[in-house]
């Protein structure tokens, strides 16, 4: 009788742990990184400028024309050499802009193509 009581007591005491604690399942789901999707910058719309050629001979004529057209008779000058430098600087900036845009385009092409394949 005592043995039966002892067994019942043990079972009652251990009852809560029968089957053990529920195991926590940890799993990971790969969440793709959000796309940057920055819109392409709006292309520049440049305004036209007019270059005046002034020599010692035509200076009066040029200034008179400006006055007649209601423009202040003042010009911001460049020598022929400086004009050449300005043109080349302009071309270098343009090339750099084109190069940077092309690199960005290639990066986009490469990574978006890879994502599509995946």
């Amino acid at each position, binding site marked *: 009788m005592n043995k039966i009581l002892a067994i019942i007591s043990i079972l009652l005491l251990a009852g809560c742990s029968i089957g053990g604690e529920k195991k926590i399942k940890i799993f990971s789901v790969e969440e793709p990184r959000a796309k940057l999707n920055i819109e392409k910058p709006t292309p520049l719309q440049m305004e036209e400028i007019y*270059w005046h*050629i002034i020599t010692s001979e035509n200076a009066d004529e040029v200034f008179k024309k400006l006055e007649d057209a209601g423009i202040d008779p003042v010009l911001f000058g460049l020598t022929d050499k400086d004009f050449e430098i300005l043109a080349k600087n302009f071309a270098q900036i343009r090339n750099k802009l084109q190069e940077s845009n092309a690199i960005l385009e290639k990066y986009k092409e490469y990574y978006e193509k890879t994502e599509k*394949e995946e």
Partner: protein
Amino acid sequence: MFGQIKLLFSVLLIAGIAGAGMYVMKLRSDNAILKANQVQLEQSIESQKKVLEQQKQDFEDIMESNKQLNKLINALKKDLDDLDKRFNKGKRDVGKLAIERSKVIEKIINKGGKNATRCIEIASGSPLTEKEIKATKKSEINPECPSIANPNYVPYE
């Protein structure tokens, strides 16, 4: 005595049969594990193959992108060299020419400025016009930046 020997043999026989049975079961279990391993290895090889193929494809894409970028950089450099030539070809002195033929040079400079402005617009992402795309002759192109403004133009002398 005979009875005991018989019992011993019987026990040995039963033990032998049980052992053989267990051995067969173990072999079957091993076989199942080996089959599972084989499947896993094959899957692993397959995925490795895919990774290698992807790496090869990526490498080719990178090489192609670099090639195209180098081509573009060389074309842009050529545009810059051409601009330099326009100012300094032979013994050309733009200043002297401007003194002698002010009106003509003023026209040329303004046309060049307009073309250069358009080049900046294109470089910043402005789409090419139909006329720019179709241009194939020297008289039709934008001489400031034919490499980006006129994709169908092939330079000729």
